[in-house]
């Protein structure tokens, strides 16, 4: 008699636990892609690779950052001169941050309180209070067409790549000052810090190289070149990074060459080239370093790359001209 009562209960608990597990997985592990041509965000299940939602954003969505504390996604809507705040539970735009003109790439301070955005057309960088959505200060004269923006891991400085001036401009966002300027290769697009923060890596899109800057001396300590049989040097146009979480590898998207380079961060050697799609730009990697996801701007899709096999295992059609990919785990 007692057994009969316990048994169904046990099953119910088991099933509900399973449902909870699955549903929490669906909610937690997602891939978000901004499509700058179709003004929307594609949301994909990281485990099944199914498209869960396509949500409208502001016009020309480009860079994105997820803030775990508030479960919100910040999306730069370049043509609307704003950053959309999207609630990832309801998938609705719940607010906007002031940004100044044409925000493209931005970064969030390590404490999650402040965003710094590059204003390409005005040669400025704007510092924004995320909580109030208001501009704190504008830093002028950060080179022609500033693009990449990265907070140093300690949150003290911001490194900005200036496409038109071929330099990295290091600013103090708290004082609003330019601290230093470093000449790199042609058309620097994006940057990334290595794991211990002692190096800043920069893609030189037209130079076809990556410059590694020592963050203590602000000198270039190494330049990485890419060479692959069958690819002309003019097609090697590095743009974005995904740094592995274990700190050993850098994945660098090579634009027109349709490949992603795998670089050993300890000795700067290029280990491999992985075939992706047309004009491969954006990149993101999962927390376990097993899956790399890249956006292919000219084929309107993303490639899912198995980092053990170093090969694309799936491509998924998304919106028009996918720009940035982020993984929310």
């Amino acid at each position: 008699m007692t057994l009969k009562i316990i048994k169904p209960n046990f099953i119910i608990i088991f099933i509900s636990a399973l449902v909870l597990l699955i549903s929490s997985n669906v909610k937690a592990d997602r891939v978000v892609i901004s499509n700058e041509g179709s003004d929307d965000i594609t949301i994909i299940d990281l485990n099944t690779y199914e498209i869960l939602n396509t949500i409208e954003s502001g016009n020309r969505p480009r860079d994105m950052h997820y803030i775990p504390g508030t479960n919100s996604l910040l999306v730069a809507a370049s043509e609307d001169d704003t950053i959309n705040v999207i609630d990832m539970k309801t998938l609705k735009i719940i607010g906007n941050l002031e940004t100044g003109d044409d925000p493209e790439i931005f970064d969030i301070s390590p404490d999650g309180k402040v965003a710094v955005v590059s204003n390409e057309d005005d040669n400025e960088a704007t510092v924004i209070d995320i909580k109030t959505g208001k501009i704190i200060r504008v830093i002028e004269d950060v080179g022609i067409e500033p693009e990449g923006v990265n907070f140093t891991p300690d949150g003290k400085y911001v490194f900005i790549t200036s496409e038109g001036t071929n330099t990295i401009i290091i600013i103090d966002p708290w004082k609003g000052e330019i601290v230093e300027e470093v000449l790199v290769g042609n058309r620097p697009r994006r940057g990334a810090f290595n794991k211990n923060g002692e190096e800043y890596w920069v893609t030189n899109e037209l130079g076809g190289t990556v410059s590694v800057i020592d963050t203590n001396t602000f000198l270039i300590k190494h330049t990485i070149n890419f060479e692959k049989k069958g690819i002309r040097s003019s097609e090697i146009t590095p743009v974005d990074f995904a740094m592995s979480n274990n700190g050993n590898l850098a994945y660098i998207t090579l634009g027109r060459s349709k490949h992603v380079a795998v670089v050993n961060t300890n000795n700067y050697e290029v280990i491999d080239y992985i075939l992706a799609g047309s004009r491969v730009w954006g990149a993101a990697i999962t927390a376990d370093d097993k899956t790399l996801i890249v956006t292919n701007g000219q084929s309107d899709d993303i490639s899912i790359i198995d980092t053990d096999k170093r090969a694309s295992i799936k491509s998924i059609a998304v919106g028009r001209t996918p720009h940035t990919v982020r993984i929310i785990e």
Partner: protein
Amino acid sequence: MRIILLKLVIIVLFLSSINSLYADEKESFNIGYYDLEKDIRYDEWGVHPVDIRSNTNQLYKRPIAGARLGLKDIKPFQRMAKVKFKLMSLRIKNIDTAANDILNHINSNNIKIILLDLPVTKLLNVVNKISNLNIAVINISSKNNELRSSNCNQNLFHTIPSERMLSDSLAQYLSDKKWRKVLMLTGPLEIDKAKSESFIESAKQFGLKIIDNRNFLLGNDPRARDQNDLDFLTGSAKYDAVYVSDTHKEFSYRVPFATHIPSAVIGSSGLTPRAWHWSYLRHGAPQVHGRFERMNQRRMTEEDWAAWIAMRAIAEALVRFKDNENFSFHDSFVSENFKLDGSKGPVLSFRKWNRQLRQPIMLSTDNWVTSIAPLESFVHRENNLDTIGIDSKTSKCSK
């Protein structure tokens, strides 16, 4: 009181000395820019017939606007180049004294490098006159083929593409589309004829067939209708495309949709090859023409672009090579490590043999870039950009 005053004077003196220290820190780097007051290229026609009735200032169309944007854009390079850029221009009134006027202007203003917006004949005079100064000259507007193939000068660089680069681009496009049979309509000016000759060379190279080359005349004279009536001009022939060379454009604007048989129109109207077109959306081009339009309230032309990129080339050479022993623009521009960003896609550089800036060409209608040359199917042994224009083997310049 006296002591306080003295202190104040000392402080003021000290501050002003600091100021002058900072001011002297960067030496002035003077760039010369020369054009002609009377230049047929900026007269009357050229943009659209309606312009002659509008208030558009003719002088305002001049590409010095591009050089001014270039100056603004290279100002941030000053931090790295440790110089202060200055653009010093002179508009020459008397064509006969042009070469002397420019020589004097260079000498009295300590000018280090110059941009020339002159028609080909005047340009050569000037270049020869100042050739002893050993100063680099950047031609921003003459497309003349001879300047790149036989009539060269060691000091002369070109940022504007040659006619041959433009006609090769068209020929590649037609060849790629398999529109191989072309009827040519050539205008009355020498420069129209030169354009057509360049197209004939390109057609030969890329395997097009010229059905006929007919001369057109602007007018309504019924006795000359075989030369001024489009039905006659484009009749009794079978072709895939009609090529028009018409510098003044008044005639060529009438050709699209007016040919005797359905046909693509290329050259001076229809699909036109240009170094730059405002409608291009990729590779950072919208940022450049956005800056240009906000500054000048007009579209950016290819000559504007050529002047703009010339300024960028100067800054790039200074930033990268200034500290080299025996620095010269001549060597820096043709160095293996000289790479220029023209917001057109690939990295740009100067051809060693004729000092022409290698660059993609935009094949555009009036409001859209339809294609970019070199087209993907044309491959060169060293640099695909060299599939358009006068190659090292045919240019006599390096010999």
